């Protein structure tokens, strides 16, 4: 049983795991969540702009949105993060100070916004054309009908896809360590990796992995829950009512309103 021992010492060294726990909780988890949530918020805002541009009737809005999406969706995340993080380090220094942390968030949000833009676009375009027509027939402008009726319905429809995107961002946030983070800025992966070097085995990284799963697995199930709820609707099953009941309701309406066609 030598190999079992080796596995257990490499991946499940209990002491090493316990030792890294406070750092994972206090530093790693915190930073992973800050990076992911900030990148998601920025990504949702930018993604909405990209989506609305992408469905515009003007090609001067449509084409830039298309290029933007193709670019950031088509490049490997690590490449974008390095290009943005190192390429704009100077500029970032004068705005945010020496930490590459904000640039990492911005790079992640650029990638995210390309995906989220596509998610929103698909959602908005899946809304029945009659909705926009009904708005316009009431005298609403294109932008008003989008903002008040079409886009909110589209967003609701793509909520599960957005949660999936958040999961992807949580995982991609581990790439920010490439930019070189201060000790207090390290996210889960970097904390785990540093501890792994000290402990001489991979157990701290396994622990970091467990933390990722703690974030992502419940969210995956939340997606399924959402999906179910939206597919079957919020409807409580009700007993069918006879169409004849409705006729009484009409009769009860003011007789001054309905003319006679009987």
């Amino acid at each position, binding site marked *: 049983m030598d190999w079992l021992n080796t596995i257990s010492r490499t991946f499940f060294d209990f002491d090493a795991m316990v030792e890294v726990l406070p750092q994972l909780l206090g530093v790693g988890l915190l930073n992973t969540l800050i990076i992911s949530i900030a990148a998601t918020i920025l990504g949702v805002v930018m993604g909405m702009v990209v989506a609305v541009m992408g469905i515009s009737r003007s090609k001067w809005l449509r084409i830039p949105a298309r290029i933007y999406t193709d670019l950031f969706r088509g490049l490997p995340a690590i490449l974008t993060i390095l290009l943005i993080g190192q390429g704009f380090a100077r500029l970032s220094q004068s705005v945010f100070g020496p930490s590459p942390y904000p640039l990492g968030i911005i790079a992640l949000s650029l990638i995210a916004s390309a995906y989220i833009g596509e998610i929103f676009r698909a959602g908005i375009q899946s809304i029945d054309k009659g909705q926009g027509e009904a708005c316009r027939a009431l005298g609403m402008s294109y932008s008003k009908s989008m903002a008040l009726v079409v886009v909110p319905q589209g967003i609701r429809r793509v909520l599960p896809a957005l949660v999936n995107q958040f999961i992807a961002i949580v995982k991609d946030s581990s790439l920010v360590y490439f930019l070189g983070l201060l000790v207090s800025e390290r996210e889960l992966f970097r904390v785990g990796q540093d501890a792994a070097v000290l402990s001489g085995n991979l157990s701290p990284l396994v622990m970091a992995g467990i933390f990722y799963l703690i974030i992502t697995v419940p969210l995956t199930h939340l997606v399924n829950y959402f999906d179910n709820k939206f597919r079957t609707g919020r409807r409580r099953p009700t007993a069918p009512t006879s169409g004849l009941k409705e006729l009484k309701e009409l009769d009860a309406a003011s007789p001054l*309103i309905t003319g006679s066609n009987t």
Partner: protein
Amino acid sequence: MNLTSSSSSATSTNQPSQDIEKFHGSSLELQNLTMAYGDVEVLRNVSLNVAPGTTTCIIGPSGSGKSTLLRGVNRLHEPKSGDVLLAGESALKVKPDILRARIGMVFQHFNLFPDHTALENVALALWSVKGMSKSEARERARRRLAEVGLAERADHRPRDLSGGQQQRVAIARALAMEPEVMLFDEATSALDPELVKGVLNLMAGLGGRGMTMLVVTHEMGFARKVADQVVFMDEGEVVEIGTPTELFDNPRSERLQRFLSEVL
């Protein structure tokens, strides 16, 4: 033939003391209206006169351009040539949003906003287009819903309403904007049979109260009883136009005779 709304036989509780709110329908005139989808002309040189407060029913086989005609009137689809006169003024010269606020439209599939309650469906355009305060808008929406018999369902969402109720919400939504003309695009075609009459009665009532109405319908009984004028269209053209008696009892064209023999 004008239906007076107080002649309802629905209930015996007539209340003559209560004022019947009259609508002030405007005249509508189509002059050589031609409409196209791309290169395909689906409406050719259609001219039509609708006097204020009258009801015109448009009948005809599918693909005859009836719906397209309605969509040309409020410019959901821009006409290729010709003109539309609303109250004597060219509708093509005003901003489409302004024009559409003056013209109500009711669709075959209701097109209610599914995430809004019945009340919010009616109130939405009142505050967002007419600039009413939200409480004012809700107040008026409540009144309009009561008029179509849905006071108690104001807080239901469309999915919890029957087709007939949904269509009545849609009518209330259009009426709340105080339009000068109402367009009905096969408003009862998607309804369960027992609910059709309720909606038709409601429409007839509007005509009786002075609304100018342009009604695309397959309900020949409604056209015969309620219309002041019936238009028969086929292949993008007006084939025959006249009173219900003239068209239904005395169809002149062979095409109308064929059509009527199929639908009656």
